[in-house]
């Protein structure tokens, strides 16, 4: 059991810096030696509307945020109205002394209400915007957390603006902490005394994936902004010049996917991604890659649809789309990483698979994974551990050593034709066509060639299947309840599993990472003997459950959440009992 497990919630209006403050606070807590997970909750608007950011810190690894709150940092009065009911008995509220308290909002609340001159102190030191620093410093004081970690993060974030900004923030933090100490002391016990802990990275899965892509040698990316995928594109754009990448914000997703196909055909590692409707627009381009057999990596960050749906909320509603979108029959990979380090590693793995099989690899995320920051040991993101496999990529010398002509689309036993990009000498002259084509690339409608190409794709698919790993087990080998999950459900389901087991029940979890081609034999072996299968997903129909039933005849109960909000362990445990 964890010795300390504290949840903070920062609430305020959009534009008040709730998300950046929350992310900085999470990083500070990780530097102080705690495991953290932090998730934003926000509306589709830039100003106004209520946003909040929830951070959980513990001395044990944490997988998901919970429902109850220990420290509420209320940047406005609406935060009180919304979140006071979530506070546990021994808890605290950080509040500016000038913030009005809605009538009755604190009735029955028995914790400490720390009303502090946050705005006044910030203004005295030069800028009201530093009220956020003051609020975080107050929270730190109430839980006994060393202020220096917070000041350190501020120094890293604002150091570029000069030491004056950092010094002013430091003074605000120290003054607020002093007042809070005098008036309230430390409220939460045990608190967050600094711990020794190996260095931890605090990041969301989008940035983990994007960093992995840079490390994997991604050379070209194109995309169009759309929540929640945009931060991948932004990260790549931000590192393009320094790491030798061309990153193009295209006119639309259709252009993006086709640019990536063009760049990949030229011979470089290339990726794109999108969400919801943006991915819809890309689907035709996927089939072009299939026809001309170029590697393609597409990051699909799901959000609730249809159409614009809930643009800042979460869902796992696009598994079927990831697997089946596009006309024609051709093989692809669909991977659903479940932790930040898996997202990081999946970028390199996706490029390797895409090049080895000259096909599409879709990496699935969802808004929850895309926006939730987690602390993971920095050592897990080890560049030296990466393997780079470019598959059957030929050089000019390879091809010039051939006695006969080079056939780009040569029919092979393993379904993959050795690839020489264009521009590599006289033998590299060939046509790559979206029409059916013969081994030399020229267009044909010959029925024998049609069959031959279909069979080539089948042979490729059979070999791709062998690459797929079965679901990963967490918890005991045998259990009364076996949870099935994919993607970001992992955290809350794993925690739910541990709760069930701690309360005398017996549960385990099989996490599906390699979703397509579905490794049916490995799945069957893993689930053999399971007594009760409960598939937990954030969608309304149970898409993994459907897949298992359709492909394997496996019938699982469906425990589904589809209100656009992330799963929690409590939600799962409550619905399991019901």
């Amino acid at each position: 059991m964890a010795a300390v497990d504290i949840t903070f919630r920062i609430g305020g209006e959009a534009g008040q810096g709730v998300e950046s403050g929350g992310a900085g606070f999470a990083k500070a807590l990780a530097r102080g030696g705690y495991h953290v997970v932090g998730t934003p909750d926000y509306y589709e608007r830039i100003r106004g509307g209520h946003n909040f950011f929830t951070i959980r810190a513990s001395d044990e690894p944490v997988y998901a945020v919970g429902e109850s709150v220990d420290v509420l940092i209320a940047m406005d009065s609406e935060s009180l109205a919304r979140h006071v009911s979530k506070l546990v008995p021994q808890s605290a509220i950080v509040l500016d002394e000038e913030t009005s308290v809605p009538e009755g909002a604190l009735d029955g609340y028995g914790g400490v209400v720390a009303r502090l001159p946050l705005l006044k102190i910030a203004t005295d030191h030069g800028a009201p915007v530093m009220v956020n620093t003051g609020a975080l410093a107050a929270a730190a004081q109430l839980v006994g957390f060393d202020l220096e970690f917070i000041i350190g993060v501020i120094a890293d974030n604002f150091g570029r603006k000069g030491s004056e900004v950092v010094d002013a923030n430091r003074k605000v933090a120290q003054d607020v902490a002093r007042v809070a100490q005098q008036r309230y002391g430390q409220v939460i016990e045990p608190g967050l005394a600094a711990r020794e802990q190996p260095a931890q990275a605090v990041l969301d899965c989008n940035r983990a994936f994007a960093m992995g892509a840079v490390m994997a040698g991604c050379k070209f990316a194109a995309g169009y902004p759309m929540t929640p995928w945009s931060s991948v594109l932004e990260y790549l754009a931000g590192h393009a010049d320094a790491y030798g990448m061309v990153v193009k914000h295209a006119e639309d997703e259709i252009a993006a996917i086709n640019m990536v196909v063009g760049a990949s055909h030229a011979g470089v590692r290339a990726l794109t991604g999108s969400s919801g409707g943006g991915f819809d627009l890309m689907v035709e381009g996927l089939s072009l890659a299939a026809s001309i057999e170029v590697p393609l990596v597409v990051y699909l960050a799901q959000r609730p649809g249809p159409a614009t749906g809930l643009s800042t909320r979460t869902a796992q509603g696009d598994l079927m789309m990831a697997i089946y979108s596009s006309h024609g029959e051709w093989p692809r990979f669909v991977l659903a990483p479940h932790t930040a380090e898996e997202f990081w590693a999946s970028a390199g793995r996706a490029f390797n698979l895409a090049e080895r099989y000259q096909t599409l690899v879709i990496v699935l995320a969802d808004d929850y994974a895309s926006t939730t920051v987690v602390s993971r040991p920095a050592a897990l993101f080890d560049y030296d551990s990466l393997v780079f496999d470019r598959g059957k990529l030929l050089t000019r010398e390879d091809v010039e050593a051939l006695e006969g002509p080079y056939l780009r689309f040569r029919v092979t036993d393993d379904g993959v034709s050795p690839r020489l990009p264009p521009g590599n000498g006289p033998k590299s002259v060939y046509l790559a066509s979206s029409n059916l084509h013969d081994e030399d690339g020229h267009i044909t409608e010959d029925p024998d060639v049609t069959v031959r190409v279909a069979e080539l794709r089948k042979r490729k698919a059979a070999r791709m299947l062998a690459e797929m790993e079965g679901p990963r087990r967490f918890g005991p080998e045998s259990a009364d309840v076996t949870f099935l999950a994919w993607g970001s459900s992992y955290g809350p389901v794993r925690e739910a599993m541990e709760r069930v087991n701690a309360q005398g029940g017996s549960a385990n979890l099989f996490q599906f990472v390699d979703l397509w081609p579905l490794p049916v034999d490995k799945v069957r072996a893993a689930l053999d003997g399971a007594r009760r299968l409960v598939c937990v997903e954030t969608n309304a129909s149970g898409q993994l459950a459907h897949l298992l039933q359709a492909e394997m005849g496996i019938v699982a109960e469906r425990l589904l959440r589809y209100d656009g909000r992330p799963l929690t362990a409590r939600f799962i445990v409550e619905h399991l009992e019901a």
Partner: protein
Amino acid sequence: MATVKDFGNSIRPTWCPGCGDYGIWNALKRAFAASGYEPDEIMMVTGIGCGSKMNDYMHISGLHTLHGRTLAVATGFKLANPGMKVVCVHGDGDGYGEGGNHFLHTVRRNIGLVDIIENNHVYGLTRGQYSPTSRPGFRTRTSPSGAIDAPMNPVALAIAEGATFVARSFALDLEQLSGLVVQALEHRGYALIDVMQPCVSFNRAMDYDWYRSRVYKVEDEGHDPSDRLAAMAKAFEYPGGENRIPTGILYRREDVPSYEEQVTAIQREPLVDQPLHVRQSDDYQALVQAFV
């Protein structure tokens, strides 16, 4: 050095006898040879349509893509391998209809693509429907009462969008068209050549004689291609008026940097010539530190 013949192959085109595509086909091969390129030095990107099968009928590096996506695929290819000359060949439906948005944005980027539009004012491969450049009143299977849409003016649009090389030619004028392609290949940035082309099967009203009696060369009338307003006036002669179609270079300037000249990662060498990792391993490992 490659000759015209070296750009040919043994595949017989499936175009109708008398199709304007033959003229464009010959002009391209002639221009490539005259410019001193080898077949592996040019990437010909095409879309979907009769004329987009151009690269199937040539010995040249080719990418035969999707309808309307020609410029997008070509842009990705060019940015990855700016060492190759990238020539786009596609029809008016592909370039101006399905690919209209890509056209708008490719023009303003001034990326180094030669863009040849086989503008026959009709859909050929799908057997005769009206196109974005069709004249009002044109009766086809999808406009049985006559087209209502006003025709697009791609040349005026390109000039308005900041294009740096805007030309028009006529598929039957081998001399002019091949000469324009040679100049487009030398151009710094995006070069549009809108080629007036008869479709003998589905647009019989606009036959060879129709075009021949209307086309004229702007240089014969002392047009200054560096004068943008004069170029715009030429662009508005067709479509709009029906009696005169200006051909030749309507507008050209060489003082605007191309897109690829301004992308940091490809200043020293094309992406395709760079190793998978361009920095020391410590620099990659350092990426993690930003999150610690």
